[in-house]
């Protein structure tokens, strides 16, 4: 069993105009086969309007154990949220 087919990640855009969402993975020799298999495995009940398939080896992921330093810079910038600002009650529609 030396010849395992390469792994692909599958993303589907659902019916309601949402973004493509990761749904799982599958094995296929090339993009065409990955697309066909994705249709058969992940959209048997009309779940999708569009499919992306990406070779798993091409995905670069952040490292969970380093999520502290990675996301830290955004933590102390509370002024990015609208609730940071006090607007007087008599001011309307803002």
């Amino acid at each position: 069993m030396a010849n395992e087919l390469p792994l692909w990640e599958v993303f589907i855009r659902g019916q309601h105009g949402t973004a493509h969402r990761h749904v799982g993975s599958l094995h296929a020799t090339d993009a065409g086969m990955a697309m066909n298999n994705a249709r058969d495995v992940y959209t048997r009940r009309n779940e999708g309007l569009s499919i992306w398939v990406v070779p798993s080896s091409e995905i670069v992921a952040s490292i969970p154990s380093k999520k502290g330093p990675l996301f830290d810079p955004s933590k102390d910038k509370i002024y990015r949220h609208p609730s940071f600002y006090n607007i007087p009650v008599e001011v309307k529609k803002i």
Partner: protein
Amino acid sequence: MYAQEVKSTGSKPKSLNSMSAKEKAFQEKIDRGQRIEPKDWMPEGYRRTLLRQMGQHAHSEIVGQLPEGNWISRAPTLERKTILLAKVQDEAGHGLYLYSAAETLGKSRDEMTKELLSGRAKYSSIFNYPTLNWSDMGAVGWLVDGAAIMNQVPLQRTSYGPYARAMVRICKEESFHQRQGFDIMMKMSFGSKKQKAMAQDSLNRFWYPSLMMFGPSDSESVHSAQSMAWKIKINFNDELRQKFVDQTAPQAEYLGLTIPDEKLKWNEKTEQYDYSEPNWEEFFEVISGNGPCNTERLAARNKAWDDGEWFRDGLLANSTKNQNSQIAAE
């Protein structure tokens, strides 16, 4: 269930105090109801137990196609045939969702396939029983998929993210399976005398094997205790079996069929059905390879794998050739 005997670490779950800092953080994350994701740190025992369980589950879906595949070409009408085809295709899909979830833990698909084909990995005992007549397709959908749903619904809340998400997809599809089975049972039970007798015969043969699907009582099992602490397992086997009996007995009554258990009776006090345990000796025989169809099922899987080798090799050779000619053109 589909994974009936998942051995865990073999020891009792550790108390929070005796855990290392990493283990403690991990356990607390699970206790808070947070999901564990593929690249998160996890104890080796968690990874191994989960792989064993997901493997058994995936293999069951794949082998589970065989008893039904037997009837695709023998279905009584074109409609029944297309429905059965769609159901068997779903089982293949469920196997693939689960394999792909298991692969996120770093085990290759080929390794898992090898474990199934060599007989090293287990799959549910239920698929080692033969499907002898058409109404068995009804009984399988109604009882076997019904029992499967019992276990799979809570597994949507399991601690491992990819497994839980696979279960969500599976549960959405499983309800069709159970209903199409009950639909066949209704047709048979309300049909001619002969048809009803076939339906009763199917129920007689599939009742106890269905109860076995939940696995032996495990309220004392250290394996289950550990799996439950890790939220890989959500309910005790007896709990789910009882729920299944309570749900199924009135359905059998509706069909006018008799569950082959003289002790089966509604208990006013406990507000649940009393019922007889299946023969656990038979269960252990079947799960260890000596059931009526174990040899046949494994032989069919091995044949499919071996016969497909030239095709898989051809596909790979073709895609390598195309890639090379692309590089040459650049």
